[in-house]
């Protein structure tokens, strides 16, 4: 059955012209005035008429799942914060609580958060204000990757507008609300620039970066909701996740739940729309907004103008190189949070597919990805630091034609040993490296085999039960 959208308008791209409902050529930065004229900050106004706990309940009910890669339910994450007693809205009676906004977008193939920051920064700021109100957070730090100079600029300007108009700062909207028992409650919002380290996208590395240290992921627990930035309760959410909040609060959770799909494998549902940044060998690359559940083929053939040069589809990365690869026979894969369990990839990730045509050399793809992980491993954990280097060397050797069959087996063994066993690495980077390399080598095994010469003595190495996929 052909897929067709149930919801034929954009929620996140309401003010950002986006194909197929509008022409991307008309994009421009939406100012505070234009934002308000087109219904902006209504979600925040509505939230302020509700009790903070009820806002959290609404977000929990909507089953909004994190858009930063892991798909963790946002409302549930918020409930991990320590409870505040009556009257503790007053900052002088308790320690500060923080929001860290993950705008580090560095996963290769991902360019979706940038669209929101480029053109509709107030949507992000409204989401921030709602989150801070619902969770009683006092300061919000937007941690933006260092390379996003322009976006940091746009955000700074929008934040200044928001301060002027009483969204943030001492006389804020939030201050004039009756539901905090008359207590003074204000929110401050700042941009904090990173400095060129992919790992700072990992939430605890991001906190270390904010604290001025090297971006080394922290061992968990304690989780950031309990001990986060400066050791205080902290919520970390992705830019796109927060941008969903205004419309969820304004239209209610049922509106959000009517979009997207239920899980077909007994998992949690994939509700709502998602920004999907399509790159690679398609005719019309760019960021699209569709309901979760759209099949990859539909996205590419019906909306992205098909594969470039009349060529055939060969493979795609579903959302960032960490997720692994969808094979030639997986063109029908539905882009929702079930994808990992159904199609033998790590997950949906950022839902920004990078598409490869039939002429693509998959060994070169593997070499490119392994170089990325070698370069970006923070070096704390031995399997990741050493394994990523070994994999890059092996991939280079295979690509150059100097490898033997045993090198291929060794590469698979190393990939499998990185992150498959829980607790051997501190963060998920090693697991991403594992899934990326392992799925490419397995799904395109024949391409690798034709590039290696037979070993004199056949060596078959696999370790433990983890050597699947």
């Amino acid at each position, binding site marked *: 059955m052909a897929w067709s959208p149930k919801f034929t308008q954009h929620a996140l791209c309401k003010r950002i012209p986006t194909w197929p409902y509008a022409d991307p050529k008309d994009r421009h930065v939406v100012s505070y005035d234009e934002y308000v004229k087109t219904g902006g900050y209504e979600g925040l106004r509505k939230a302020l008429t509700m009790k903070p706990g009820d806002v959290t309940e609404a977000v929990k009910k909507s089953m909004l799942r994190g858009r930063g890669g892991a798909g963790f339910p946002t409302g549930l994450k918020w409930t991990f914060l320590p409870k505040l007693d009556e009257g503790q809205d007053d900052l002088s009676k308790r320690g500060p609580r923080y929001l860290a906004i993950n705008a580090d*977008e560095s996963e290769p*193939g991902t360019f979706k958060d940038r669209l929101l920051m480029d053109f509709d920064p107030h949507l992000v700021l409204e989401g921030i204000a709602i989150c801070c109100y619902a969770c009683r957070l006092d300061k919000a730090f937007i941690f933006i990757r260092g390379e996003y100079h*322009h976006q940091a600029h746009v955000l700074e300007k929008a934040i200044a507008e928001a301060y002027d108009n009483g969204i943030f700062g001492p006389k804020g909207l939030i201050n004039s609300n009756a539901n905090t028992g008359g207590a003074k409650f204000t929110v401050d919002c700042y941009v904090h620039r*990173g*400095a060129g*380290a992919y790992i700072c996208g990992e939430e605890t590395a991001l906190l270390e970066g904010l*604290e*001025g240290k090297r971006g080394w992921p922290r061992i968990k627990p304690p989780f950031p909701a309990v001990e986060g930035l400066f050791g205080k309760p902290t919520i970390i959410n992705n830019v796109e996740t927060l941008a969903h909040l205004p419309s969820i609060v304004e239209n209610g959770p049922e509106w959000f739940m009517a979009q997207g799909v239920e899980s077909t494998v007994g998992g949690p549902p994939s509700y709502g729309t998602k920004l999907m940044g399509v790159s*690679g060998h398609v005719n019309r690359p760019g960021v699209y907004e569709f309901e979760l559940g759209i099949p990859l083929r539909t996205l590419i053939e019906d909306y992205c103008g098909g594969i470039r040069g009349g060529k055939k589809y060969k493979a795609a990365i579903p959302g960032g190189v960490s997720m692994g690869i969808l094979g030639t026979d997986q063109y029908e894969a539905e882009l929702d949070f079930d994808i990992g369990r159904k199609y033998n990839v790590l997950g949906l990730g950022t839902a920004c597919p990078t598409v490869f045509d039939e002429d693509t050399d998959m060994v070169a793809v593997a070499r*490119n990805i392994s170089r990325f992980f070698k370069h970006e491993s923070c070096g704390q954990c031995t399997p990741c630091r050493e394994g990523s280097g070994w994999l890059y060397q092996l991939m280079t050797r295979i690509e150059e034609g100097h490898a033997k069959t045993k090198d291929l087996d060794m590469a698979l063994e190393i990939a499998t040993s990185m992150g498959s066993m829980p607790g051997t690495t501190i963060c998920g980077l090693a697991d991403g490296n594992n899934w990326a390399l392992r799925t490419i080598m397995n799904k395109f095994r024949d391409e690798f085999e034709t590039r290696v010469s037979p070993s004199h003595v056949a060596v078959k190495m696999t370790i433990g039960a983890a050597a699947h996929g």
Partner: protein
Amino acid sequence: MAWIPKPSASMKIERRDEPYLTQAMKDELSQRYLPRFETTLAALLPALHMIQHEYHWVPPQAMEEIAEFLGLSPADVLDTATFYEEYALAPRGRHVVGVCRSIACEFCGQPQVTQAIKDTLGIDVGETTADGKVCLVELECLGSCGTAPAALIDEELHEQLTPQRAAELVRQVRSQDAPPPASGREGLAPETASNAPKGASKSAPKSAH
């Protein structure tokens, strides 16, 4: 990421009388940044950004000055500065051309773009032109995968590059301006500038690791 061995036995910090961390920078740090944070260490990334933006690298003396101003040990500053690729620990070209080499760009024409830039400048990736004006590096995904191939020239992003366009851009950048005398050191040949903690003999950026 960088694990940089430093030539402890032979390392000398070259000093100048005029401080790198200017009064204006100190004022901005204490008025704009420090009130946001619970620790002074948290103002370190903004402080390093200021130095990098002004001098196009982070001299060891500047790290000491930042440490003193924020009440940190110089080792803390070095620890953080060596981790982040945006901070150059040795002088490199006045302008930095950073071509994205990640997945979407490599398979949408980046190798030809890099080649065109190398040919135009007569240098390899990780090198600086002899006039000290342009340094070529490769970066990871710049968030412009839909408009690949992309390159960041100083702080400006250029998208949908062709080899011709890339060559034209670097030519423009190279002829733009004379190296400013204030920072003094950029005109030096890379070999003479090996006093930085990483002891690099070339102006190799950390991303060449």
